[in-house]
């Protein structure tokens, strides 16, 4: 027993602590999956279809088998008996959704360029690559369709014959008297936008590595995955390896952005082949291979209509989406556009709401989650449409936004959910002040008056999004087949350190740092005394992993509550040590204070471990787990402003400035939060200006590698100007909301509103993303006198 007044530990929640993850990453000591080796290991090479749609008439692997160093080679038919189920799709949105069988290797038909048709196991990476070239596949090429709208036409080739249609599903959400509100509207606008198909480009390519213990039927599988826990249960289903015999580890993972929120053919293949051969198996994609085998994002055609009064008060929103699923349903493919289904009213008070989404099969790589997943699309549509409304009625877009903002919270919205908190005026006002809005409008006018060939464009995006996925009951109601909870465990070890088991699995976000801050702050440990473990199903039994800006808003809150449980138990022991009643013990930051004496939580942890003298009936040890199921989503919001300059002679767009004001609730680590916003904005700007996965009519991906698909470098971006407002979420005790996707959600609309703003005096009201110089130049050519 000691008698310290307070531990001298500064509060760490809210502090810009430098990350504990960095040291090994900066010294080349990260554990990437591709680093792994094991005696006798084989490398896989995957033979992929060069046709978008073809019948597989024959696969001859003999020439590959004859190649020195090739251990085995199989066609899809040869290995078909390994599969106990299709690759998983966890979200079948309607009862009548057409969900095709999806084997890890195609057997009868290839349905997109990149579809796996055979697999090689060889003793070296190079040999596997060589042998892939030797497999002879006899294809009968079939007609294909790559465009989602075209795929719905009567005479379109069918991606899956058995459905008699390329329609995967249609999902609707209706609220309020939408038809009446449109009929009575003084003003309506109708817009059509294209959400360009994007390639996520996590900078670490996908890889999987499996070590089997054949005698026990046990497997350890390392994967570049965001979702080791989901991978374990689903890969068990695909291969029949019992969950108890499968350990999945996500070691250091080099970015994900949704592309690693999936369970892929190659993971199932590596597991099945390790079982067949009884040898360790490794597969690593090349980047170009990844472009035709790792999921893509977006690919939507959006039609949005607004009904409004003559002053610009929006009364109803009607949205129709046509979304390319690609050839198969990956883990969340059909659900991605539905993650935006509630958000097409944006941060505006809207009475009538109508949403309809049709998912469509095409002969392309499946789409799935890419940063923002449904919410960038929704934000884009409503924010562009509000600007269109402002143009229609001749008002400033700022004025129309202010007229429509939701101002009372919690705010039930027409689409049926409730926004937790926000102050949309505060974010917009701050953004306008920081950007110097009135001066910029003045400069814009004077440039136009002077006939300047370089137009100035100012674009707003006042967004709200829903993240912190997700209340399990809501997920169940919308037919998602898993829960949305997250788990955290805190172990107070005997010698004065604490171990955290996090069910959320990082891949660059900095969980180890943020989790350490929360535990240090609540339990009085030094930051470096907290160790955070994650990403290993054998070490962390409970987890729902990382996606949808959920880690802090769900997993961090679980950690907060686990700390409560630690304090609750430790208080009993402290009272026992201090020989007072529990009610006479006050706790603050790692110290239990009784009348005249104190004991630290670390001392209590030691006492709990020795268990020499515990209160009667209390279990030894100081450890607690909390599984948190959020009662609501969390709702970050903000105001972003993009300033662009367009050279009307060349069509080139320069992003001059980008101002972001974000309200992500309480901030645990402002440095990490800024980093997340920087990266999100960069990806959002890239969607607006640079990136586009383009298929030709024969289903060839023309942007098939990093030379032809423009992933922006440092020269493409300005300095990001970041500011924050803060309305803590009342839903959780930390007040946090989530920040992983805000930038990617807000930015495309801000940039494209700026592009159109720059050109609207020329009579141009729409440029398709990405706004390339060619597109802008052609649009200008059409309107030039």
């Amino acid at each position: 027993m000691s008698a310290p007044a307070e531990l001298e530990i500064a509060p760490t929640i809210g502090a810009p602590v430098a990350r504990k993850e960095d040291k090994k990453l900066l010294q080349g000591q990260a554990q990437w999956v591709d680093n792994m080796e094991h005696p006798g290991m084989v490398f896989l090479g995957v033979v992929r279809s060069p046709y978008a749609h073809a019948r597989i008439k024959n696969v001859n692997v003999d020439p590959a088998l004859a190649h020195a160093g090739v251990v085995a080679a199989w066609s899809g038919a040869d290995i078909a008996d390994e599969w106990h189920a299709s690759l998983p799709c966890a979200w079948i949105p309607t009862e009548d959704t057409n969900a095709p069988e999806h084997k890890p290797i195609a057997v009868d038909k290839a349905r997109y360029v990149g579809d796996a048709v055979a697999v090689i196991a060889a003793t070296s990476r190079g040999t596997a690559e060589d042998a892939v070239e030797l497999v002879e596949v006899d294809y009968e090429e079939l007609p294909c369709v790559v465009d989602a709208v075209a795929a719905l036409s009567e005479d379109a080739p069918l991606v899956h014959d058995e459905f008699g249609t390329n329609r995967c599903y249609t999902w609707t959400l209706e609220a309020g008297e939408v038809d009446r509100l449109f009929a009575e509207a003084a003003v309506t606008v109708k817009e059509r936008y294209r959400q360009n198909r994007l390639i996520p480009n996590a900078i670490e390519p996908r890889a999987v590595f499996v070590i089997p213990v054949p005698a026990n039927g046990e497997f350890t599988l390392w994967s570049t995955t965001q979702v080791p826990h989901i991978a374990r249960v689903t890969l068990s289903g695909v291969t029949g390896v019992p969950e108890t015999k499968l350990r999945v580890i996500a070691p250091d993972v080099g970015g994900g952005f949704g592309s690693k929120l999936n369970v892929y053919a190659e993971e199932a293949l590596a597991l099945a082949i390790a079982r067949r051969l009884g040898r360790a198996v490794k597969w690593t994609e090349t980047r170009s291979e990844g472009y035709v085998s790792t999921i893509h994002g977006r690919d939507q055609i959006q039609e949005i209509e607004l009904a409004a009064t003559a002053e610009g008060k929006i009364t109803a929103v009607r949205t129709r989406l046509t979304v390319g699923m690609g050839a198969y349903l990956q883990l969340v493919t059909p659900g991605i556009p539905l993650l935006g289904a509630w958000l097409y009213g944006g941060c505006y008070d809207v009475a009538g709401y109508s949403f309809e989404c049709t998912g469509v099969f095409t002969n392309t790589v499946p789409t799935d989650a890419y940063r923002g997943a449904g919410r960038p699309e929704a934000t884009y549509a409503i924010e562009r449409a509000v600007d269109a409304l402002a143009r229609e009625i001749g008002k400033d877009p700022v004025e129309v936004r202010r007229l429509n903002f939701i101002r009372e919270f919690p705010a039930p919205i027409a689409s049926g959910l409730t926004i937790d908190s926000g102050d949309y005026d505060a974010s917009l006002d701050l953004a306008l002040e920081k950007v110097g809005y009135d001066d910029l409008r003045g400069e814009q006018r004077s440039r136009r008056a002077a006939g300047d060939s370089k137009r100035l464009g100012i674009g707003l995006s006042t967004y709200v999004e829903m993240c912190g996925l997700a209340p399990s009951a809501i997920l169940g109601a919308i037919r998602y087949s898993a829960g949305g909870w997250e788990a955290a465990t805190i172990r107070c070890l005997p010698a004065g350190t604490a171990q955290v088991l996090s069910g959320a699995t990082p891949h660059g976000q900095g969980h180890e740092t943020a989790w350490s801050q929360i535990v240090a702050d609540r339990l009085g440990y030094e930051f470096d005394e907290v160790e955070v473990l994650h990403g290993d199903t054998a070490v962390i039994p409970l987890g729902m992993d990382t996606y949808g800006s959920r880690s802090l808003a769900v997993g961090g809150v679980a950690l907060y509550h686990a700390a409560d449980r630690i304090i609750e138990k430790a208080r009993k022991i402290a009272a026992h040590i201090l020989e007072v009643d529990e009610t006479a013990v006050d706790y603050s930051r790692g110290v239990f204070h009784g009348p005249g004496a104190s004991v630290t939580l670390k001392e209590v942890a030691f006492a709990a471990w020795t268990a020499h003298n515990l209160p009667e009936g209390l279990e030894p040890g100081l450890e607690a787990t909390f599984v948190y199921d959020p009662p609501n989503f969390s709702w970050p919001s903000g105001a972003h402003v993009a300033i662009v300059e367009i050279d009307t002679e060349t069509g080139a767009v320069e992003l001059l400035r980008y101002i972001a004001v974000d309200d992500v609730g309480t901030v645990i680590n402002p440095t990490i939060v800024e980093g997340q916003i920087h990266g999100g904005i960069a990806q959002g700007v890239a969607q607006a200006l640079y990136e586009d996965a383009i298929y030709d009519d024969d289903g060839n991906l023309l942007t098939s590698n990093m030379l032809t698909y423009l992933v922006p470098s440092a020269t493409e971006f300005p300095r990001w100007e970041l500011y924050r407002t803060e309305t803590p979420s009342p839903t959780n005790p930390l007040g946090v909301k989530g920040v992983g996707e805000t930038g990617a959600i807000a930015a495309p609309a801000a940039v494209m509103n700026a592009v159109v703003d720059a050109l609207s005096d020329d009579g141009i009201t729409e440029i398709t993303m990405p706004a390339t110089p060619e597109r802008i130049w052609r649009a200008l050519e059409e309107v030039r006198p």
Partner: protein
Amino acid sequence: MRSVSFTVNGVAHELELEPRELLVYVLRERLGLTGTVVGCDTSSCGACTVLLDGESVKACTILGVQADGAAITTIEGLAENGSLHPLQELFHEHHALQCGYCTSGMVLAAVSLLAENPSPTSDEIRHALEGNICRCTGYQNIVDAIEAAAR
């Protein structure tokens, strides 16, 4: 097979290499220096950047046999006597990395830049990094870290 000798982080190596082996795989798979990583197959991303006789090169773009006689520095060789290189420290301080996969290449590209131009402007830094892709950070903190090193 061809006999090749070079030094990596000051250590001499004599290897028998297949002519087609890329330097990056020689480093990773023969020498176990997995701090140098592969991010693409088109020499676009720069994740595999190393220093060859002090100048940054993409290790996926040259063959192991081409490095014969060279002095190579990888990320593992940058810290000296147990202390991080100033750029490693500044990347940490400025939160210039998130997932860390591009970081080895970024740091070595920055070392090479500062050797050529000890006080680059932020524009010069951005142009010098054109061959190194980062998907996480939006580049700003990387530029800031390098600018801080230049001061």
